[in-house]
């Protein structure tokens, strides 16, 4: 007979998995007592055999259960023991992950494109090297026009026919010459003036806008810029004023100021007692349309130009224009944007 209680007692006392394995072989293996008993079954009468077999099976099951349960217990305690020993100092530095950044100018160009995309503008481009004709003459700024003095121009040839564009406006000419109206474009790009001090850089970024159709009025110009400025600065209340000004390529021409106040030395755009000039605009001069082979009797519209770097400075509190172009690792890290931070309309322009 098998002493079930004694066997189970031994199982419960097994100290580790190996001991338990040995017990399992001993109690349930080929040579185990219970196996011997099973072998004897054949020699018993049928009735007795049935009862005996049932009782043996019952015993075997109990032993198996006891072993399995002890096994689980031992496993658990082994893991626990291991966990007790296996500890790391999680305050040690983590492995490096690359951490790149997007330049504020690029981020702001993305923001602006997203805003204008919403009202149907598409992005156009033009070359940085321009002809004197496209940069000035076609834009109603003939050679002896004093307005040329306001653009300190980099030239690439002695005859002053080839230059680095002083504004993104020549792209107006290129865009109109290469297509048919209506035109509804924005043009972000690099622009150049040979002027360099604390507040001027020899290269900076401009955003040009052009909307030409049959009945685009100055009211549309105002509405478009009002929409843009509020979206860009992410404020609902914003004071804006149009001041008459002069650009040879638009007429009437205006400069646009927005209201702001100072808080702890930082400019807060929106409402306030101070005005800040942010862009120039106007109705495209008929001469410009003519030069771009657009019939000014049939088509009219507006254009605007603004400094992207300046917008970035205002929105993100950057003080020094020149620092944009100095690629200082510390500056890029501080003012740069996470590449996952893609400006969109529905998730918001900025964090």
């Amino acid at each position, binding site marked *: 007979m098998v002493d079930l209680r004694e066997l189970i007692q031994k199982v419960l006392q097994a100290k580790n998995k190996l001991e338990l394995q040995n017990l399992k072989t001993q109690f349930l293996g080929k040579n185990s007592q219970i196996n011997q008993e099973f072998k004897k079954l054949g020699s018993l009468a049928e009735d007795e055999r049935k009862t005996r077999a049932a009782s043996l099976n019952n015993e075997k099951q109990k032993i198996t259960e006891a072993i399995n349960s002890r096994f689980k217990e031992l496993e658990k305690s082994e893991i626990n023991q291991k966990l007790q020993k296996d500890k790391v100092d999680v305050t040690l530095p983590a492995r490096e992950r690359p951490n790149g950044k997007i330049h504020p100018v690029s981020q702001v160009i993305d923001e602006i494109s997203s805003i*204008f995309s*919403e009202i149907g503008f*598409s992005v156009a481009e033009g070359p*940085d090297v321009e002809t004197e004709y496209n940069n000035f003459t076609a834009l109603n700024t003939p050679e002896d026009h004093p307005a040329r003095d306001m653009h300190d121009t980099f030239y690439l040839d002695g005859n002053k026919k080839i230059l680095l564009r002083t504004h993104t406006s020549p792209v107006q000419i290129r865009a109109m010459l290469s297509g048919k109206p209506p035109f509804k474009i924005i043009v972000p790009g*690099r622009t150049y003036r040979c002027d360099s001090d604390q507040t001027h850089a020899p*290269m900076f970024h401009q955003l040009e806008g052009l909307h030409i159709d049959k009945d685009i009025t100055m009211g549309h110009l105002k509405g478009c810029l009002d929409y843009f400025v509020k979206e860009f600065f992410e404020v609902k209340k914003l004071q804006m004023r149009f001041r008459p*000004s002069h650009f040879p390529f638009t007429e*009437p021409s205006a400069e646009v100021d927005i209201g702001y106040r100072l808080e702890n030395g930082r400019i807060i755009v929106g409402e306030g007692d101070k005005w800040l000039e942010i862009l120039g605009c106007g109705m495209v001069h008929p001469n410009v349309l003519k030069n771009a082979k657009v019939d000014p009797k049939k088509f009219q519209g507006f254009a605007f130009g603004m400094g992207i770097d300046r917008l970035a400075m205002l929105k993100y509190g950057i003080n020094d224009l020149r620092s944009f172009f100095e*690629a200082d690792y*510390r500056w890029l890290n501080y003012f740069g944007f996470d590449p996952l931070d893609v400006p969109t309309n529905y998730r918001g322009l900025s964090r």
Partner: protein
Amino acid sequence: MIITLSWLKNHLSTSANLSKIIDKLTGIGLEVEGIKGSQGELSDFKVVKVLKVEKHPNADKLKLCDVSLGKNKTIKVVCGAANARNGLITIYAPPGSVIPKTKMKLKVAKIRGVESHGMLCSESELNISDESDGIIELKNREKDIGKNYFKNKGEKSIDISVTPNRPDCLGVRGIARDLSSSGLGQLKKQPQIKINQKFKNPIKVSIKKEKNQGCGIFGSVYIKNVQNKESPDWLKKRIISLGLKPISAIVDATNYVMYDLNRPLHAYDADKIDQEIIVRNSKIGESFEALDNKTYKLQNNMCSVSDKSGVLGLGGIIGGNRSATELSTKNVLLESAYFFPSSIRKTSKILSIDTDAKYRFERGIDPDSVKLGLELGMCMILDMCGGEASKLSIVGKIQDKRPTINLEPEKFLKVIGFSMTIAEIKKILISLGCSLKIIGKKIKVLPPSWRPDIKEDIDLIEELIRIKGFDKISLVHPERTRSKETLSFKQKLFHLSQRATATKGYLEAVTWSFTDSRIDKHFSQGKKAIEIANPISSDLNVLRRSIFSNLIIYLKKNQDRGYPDLSLFEIGPTFFGNKPGEQQIILGGLKSGVANRKSWDSQARNIDVFDVKADSVKTLTELGIEEDDLHISNKTQDYYNPGRSGSINLKSANGPQLAFFGEIHPAIVSNVDLKEQNVCGFEIFLKNIPEPKKKHRLAKKNYSVSEFQKSERDFAFVIDKSYKAGEVEKLINEVDKDLIKKVLIFDVFEGGNMPEGKKSIAINVTIQSMDKTLSEKDIHEVSQKIINIVKAKTGGTIRS
């Protein structure tokens, strides 16, 4: 343009206060840039009386003065002037004030042991005149003691930024007219001038008829027996308020008229003119000494006012010393002329001269103001200096080129968005000086002679809305519709590659499009520098041929700041010629230093070619190119280390150039003098990335994966060193496209017991079928094929 309120009120009757005027000016396009004066330096100077003068105890030439500031307030001032005496009324500068001449700020100081509270001033110290001999002596000013000396100076001056289309507003009267037009007052009538002019101008004037003659009209008047002197106070103050220095009554009068009416005048000492005035084109080689004491060498065809002896001055630009008026001048020839803007501009540009007159003439002076200017200048001189004036002599005539403009009121509505009545149009245009003829609904407009900028109807529309006010335009909200894609394929690539690179740990830099030719030449493959004719500095003298030129400069600057481990990138134009369009967008990255520098658990290692290979390959696949289509070879540019750099082409060695990557050539690294010499870079050529015919989502193959077991087999081949690992990989891949799912090179070994010129490559191959579980036999067959093909193509043998 600077104006003062009192000067403005000479032309405008208005009850508006300063702040209202300032707001209005800005509102009509005369932007106020600043207000000066009220707290300005000149309001510090007081009229004082010297009560008692004693000798300075420690200095023979110095005096110790008790000075009364009025209201029983007395202070002590040390003074060196010989004329300091009891009872003298003079001007006192208190501590804290700034002396205009020396720009020195006064403070209470001990002079030879005696404390002095401020100083007593000479005229020269206050920039009133050149008189420096002794302190100012004021007569009959007893009642002003304690008051400001510069009374009008206490008045605020308004600095207005006048746009180049508005020459008329370079005179106070023009500004007054605009203000009056906008409803801020009444423009006063110019006083009638009646002078007895009996004799004929004795100096003959002629404008030579020749091509490119720069002078249209030359008016002059001869004033004899004048007594030139200092200007009276009121005139001096106005001249000073303009930021100019009073010189003499005659010169100050010409400057006054210039700023009052935007009408430049010039005064000659008539006795210094050799016989007659001839306005003619200069000849190359002629020269003259101008009023700025510089000698100008003239070229052909510069408009010169000359006499029989030669050039006297450049008309409309600058006069000459030879005929300059002095205090001793007895007879004056006063000039009021019209010079053509283009001529003025050309000459002044060549000679680099900038004067008030030039600034005005090049923007366009009212040709009809010749006579009025002469009369006003003449009257002022007669008033101040006495004398007798000749009859006016005006030679030359210019064609009146003013157009008659047809203005349709509907056009205003069409451009601006609201309509304006004919009555209002009429009122505004007339107030600006236009002449109108109204025929039914059409208006014929003749602009005034002082508005050369008004040429067509749009110019009038601008005037109308400018005066009416831009705030009257109601805005039209934009429609939120889009009929065209915002970005083109190339533009999308630009933005995607930018962010893709940043996700790999690179910081985006934006650097100049120009660079230092000495650096650019390292990366330009021997091509000619693209020079800028007028660079801002010698180290920014060429357009960059490579995206690396500036990046490496800034890499160095950052390394020098103590950051050796860097990843920088820029996406922007590089240039291959100096014609428009000879540029392309390049994305370039530079990386330097060590990975895992000072890591507690990872081995530090130099970053190398395989880092930048990973960055460029990954970026290209993110841009939509299949990795299988990236053909990699070692054919690179000479600025990379030839043995440690690669080229990525589309599909084959001769396919479009997608990228280069590798270590930067050590010679360049040492030439640029980088502290951390381990530098790698990559360039991606966005223009060579083809636009797929179908969108990526449509071009994807159907999804299918095998449900059957996969097997992996490792092979080690011994092959000639000349074979690239990539070639072996490609060979194996092509053995059986259906069964071979993946080929991975996991070890490369040379040297040791390897035969000379050989290397061992260990490759892991994954074999799997789509439709059955492969038997040992099937796998063996594939393996054998792999071994056979590698052997056949490369001679490589399987390592036992």
